[in-house]
């Protein structure tokens, strides 16, 4: 097989800390090469070296037989290196066609533009992957999955030979992920090499020809997917055995913290009923659009319901705003921590203490800085947030630590009910286990937790009850004993995606 990219003995260090140590890497043509490792293991450092954003301290890159000790961004593009960044780098108000074509026009040094040419380039790329999109609508009107496709087409338009995809499936639903992976497989058939970076290990096993594992800047090894299983892979990534703790509720039923009766909102969800007891971790599982996030927002005082009852601590009430929700002891960890959860450019301290303002301010509404600091220190310690200082900007933290910051924020308020919407998206395996421990610790202390998730292992590890949602309706309520059955994962999977005509496999029962 022809070698497209060879990296030989790459070293890179930042201020004495090795980000990459003696890294060797080979990608052949038409090969899907998965690069896995925890945050900070050196994956992104390597990508930055290949695209020419930074230069290595030592070692060389060989692309299509050409040797480079330091490659420039333009040289990288000419060698056919393309990266699809996690944020996709698209222009939201500009048309699909232009988003696809513009990089190619720049690379060709064009001064004038011709609408026909733009359309032709776009049509050609889209036909390469057999997708049809409206060329003239602005990209902001597309779903995340279709934006991903636009980004792929843009890379193809530049005659990509090797495509780096950084966490491409993070914001996608199961169906969209399957579609994307099939596109990746198709590109491989056409001879394109893909370097696939993902935290979702099941996807890695699905597409990889070779899996390269990085740990602390060093390569652990290259493996064929047959040689690894989930356990060995996580062991190599983290250097330790990662076992997700299995939650068992130890509290006995007394009074429900929250009861929801026939809650409906047109177009979102209908007739949702369930009870949440202290120490419960109730899983909400379903596809995007099944009503799970909509329901969570309703319980948090956004997205008001049309009918039905919400009973908190035995009192039926209306939750009109997040402020009221917080006063009732309801916390929310939102789906997208970057845009909806965190103040990215503020310190960890400010991010943690934002829910505690009443507690840390004096009568004149002046913040007691020392108290704020000591509370934040305590929270950082309790939650095991890895951060040099509580003054560090939240933006600079890894995904797992960012998520723990939001946990800390709510845990400090002593909530009664904590709603977690996809808490481990974009979080690496090691941190995932730590977050699960956190969730289970909070539950054991008597908090009722609603856990929204896409991932079956996450549901099975943490939840003692679950609601399966499809098209806004609860199609199954699962008890603890249901969740302990061996094949429950597969059966839930079928429930989620079947179109509703088949008989429910798990009988609906009342919790």
């Amino acid at each position, binding site marked *: 097989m022809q070698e497209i990219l060879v990296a030989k003995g790459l070293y890179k260090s930042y201020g004495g800390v090795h980000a990459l140590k003696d890294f060797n890497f080979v990608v052949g043509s038409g090969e899907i090469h998965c690069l896995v490792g925890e945050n900070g293991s050196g994956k992104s450092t390597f990508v930055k070296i290949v695209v020419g954003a930074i230069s290595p301290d030592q070692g060389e890159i060989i692309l299509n037989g050409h040797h480079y000790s330091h490659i420039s961004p333009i040289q990288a593009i000419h060698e056919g290196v393309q990266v699809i960044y996690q944020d996709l780098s698209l222009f939201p108000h500009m048309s699909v066609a*232009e988003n696809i074509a513009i*990089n190619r026009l720049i690379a060709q040094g064009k001064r004038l*533009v011709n609408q026909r040419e733009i359309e032709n380039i776009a049509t050609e790329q889209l036909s390469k992957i057999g997708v049809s999109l409206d060329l*003239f609508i602005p990209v902001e009107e597309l779903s995340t999955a279709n934006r991903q496709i636009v980004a792929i087409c843009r890379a193809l338009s530049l005659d990509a030979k090797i495509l780096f995809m950084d966490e491409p499936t993070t914001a996608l639903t199961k169906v969209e992920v399957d579609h994307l992976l099939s596109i990746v497989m198709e590109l491989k058939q056409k001879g394109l090499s893909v370097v696939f970076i993902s935290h979702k290990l099941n996807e890695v096993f699905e597409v990889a020809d070779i899996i390269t594992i990085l740990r602390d800047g060093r390569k652990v090894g290259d493996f064929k997917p047959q040689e690894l299983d989930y356990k060995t892979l996580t062991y190599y990534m983290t250097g330790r055995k990662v076992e997700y703790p299995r939650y068992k509720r130890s509290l006995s039923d007394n009074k429900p913290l929250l009861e929801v009766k026939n809650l409906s909102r047109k177009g979102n969800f209908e007739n949702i009923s369930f009870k949440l007891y202290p120490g419960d971790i109730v899983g909400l599982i379903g596809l995007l659009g099944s009503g799970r996030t909509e329901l969570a927002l309703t319980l948090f005082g956004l997205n008001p319901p049309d009918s039905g009852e919400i009973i908190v601590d035995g009192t039926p009430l209306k939750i009109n705003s997040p402020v009221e929700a917080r006063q009732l002891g309801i916390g929310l960890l939102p789906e997208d921590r970057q845009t909806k959860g965190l103040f990215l450019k503020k310190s960890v301290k400010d991010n943690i203490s934002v829910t505690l303002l009443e507690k840390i301010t004096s009568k004149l509404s002046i913040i007691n800085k020392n108290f704020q600091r000591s509370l934040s220190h305590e929270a950082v310690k309790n939650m095991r947030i890895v951060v040099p200082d509580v003054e560090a900007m939240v933006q600079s933290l890894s995904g797992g630590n960012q998520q723990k910051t939001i946990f800390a924020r709510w845990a400090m308020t002593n909530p009664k009910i904590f709603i977690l919407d996809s808490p481990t998206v974009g979080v690496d395996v090691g941190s995932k286990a730590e977050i699960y421990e956190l969730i289970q610790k909070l539950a054991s202390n008597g908090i009722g937790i609603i856990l929204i998730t896409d991932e079956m292992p996450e549901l099975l590890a943490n939840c003692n009850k679950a609601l399966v949602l499809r098209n806004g309706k609860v199609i199954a309520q699962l008890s603890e004993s249901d969740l302990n059955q061996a094949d429950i994962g597969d059966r839930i999977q079928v429930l989620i995606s079947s179109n509703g005509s088949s008989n429910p496999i798990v009988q609906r029962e009342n919790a």
Partner: protein
Amino acid sequence: MRTKKRFLTRNESYLLAIVLIYSTIVALKNPAFLSFENFFDLLRAASGKLLLALGVLVVLISGGIDVSFTAIAIFGGYTSARLMLATDIDNLAFAFLVSASIGILLGSINALIIHIFRLPTLIATLGTSSVFFGLMTILVGTKSINAGQMPSSIINFGSARLFEAVAPSGNTYGLSVFIIPVVFAILVTWFVLYRTMLGRGIFSLGNSEESAKRAGFNLFLIRFFVYSYVGLLAGIMGVVYVAEVRWVNPVSLVGTELSIIAAAVIGGAKLTGGEGTILGTILGIIIIQLFNSTLVFLGLSSSWNDLFVGMILLISVSVTSYQQRLKSRRSLTFSD
């Protein structure tokens, strides 16, 4: 799967409707409004504003804002008139050359400051606006030039018409030559924005600076062009302005920049960048000019002008913002 390109955006069709409805009301109230004479007067009076607004449109698309263009315009217009008087060169081309050069120079200073120090564009141009104005009053002076002193080439430019006709009242009227630089500016702006990579770079920069950088656009070049181009248009407007009013008081004009920005925003340009159309901007200026010149036909004092312009601005911005909010509600974003 493809949508047809619409000739008018939704916002533009609203604006067009406002122009038509308002004109109908004025015409019903006072039939004298519907005359070519009046229409040509309106065009002449709107010419300078439109030149400035095209510049503003380009800056807004690039994601920036410029409030120094009125200072640049008066700097160029006043200095060129003074220079003509001082050197006895009574030549219109000279006036344009001087004023346009000053405009490009001052605009490029804006660009350099913004790019090198990475300043927010509002702060940077707020600062340079005062600096430019102060510089002019110190270097060139503050004495007004009245119609009697004004070089004859400028006076002639102000009264020249492309063609003339005689109104039933016996007045001759016609289409002012101001339309020439305006049409020229519209064509150039259109060509740059929609037919050159530079123009697409301006849109890209306004959409996302980071993405534009990654795509390989030269951001310095784009910014340099954008602010110099605003300066150039302001310089040209300076001469048109001096010719229009036939006398120049150096403290006039400065302070009107917000109404020009308002016109561009009414026309659909977004302060957040990446969006805006030439037709929208033209309609925005027409609306502002209509209120400016036609309230008398309705028997209203000019104090109503600000009220109307402000209301249109608020309504047009509120409507788009509300639609955006509904859209984000559908995607479960509750950022309000």
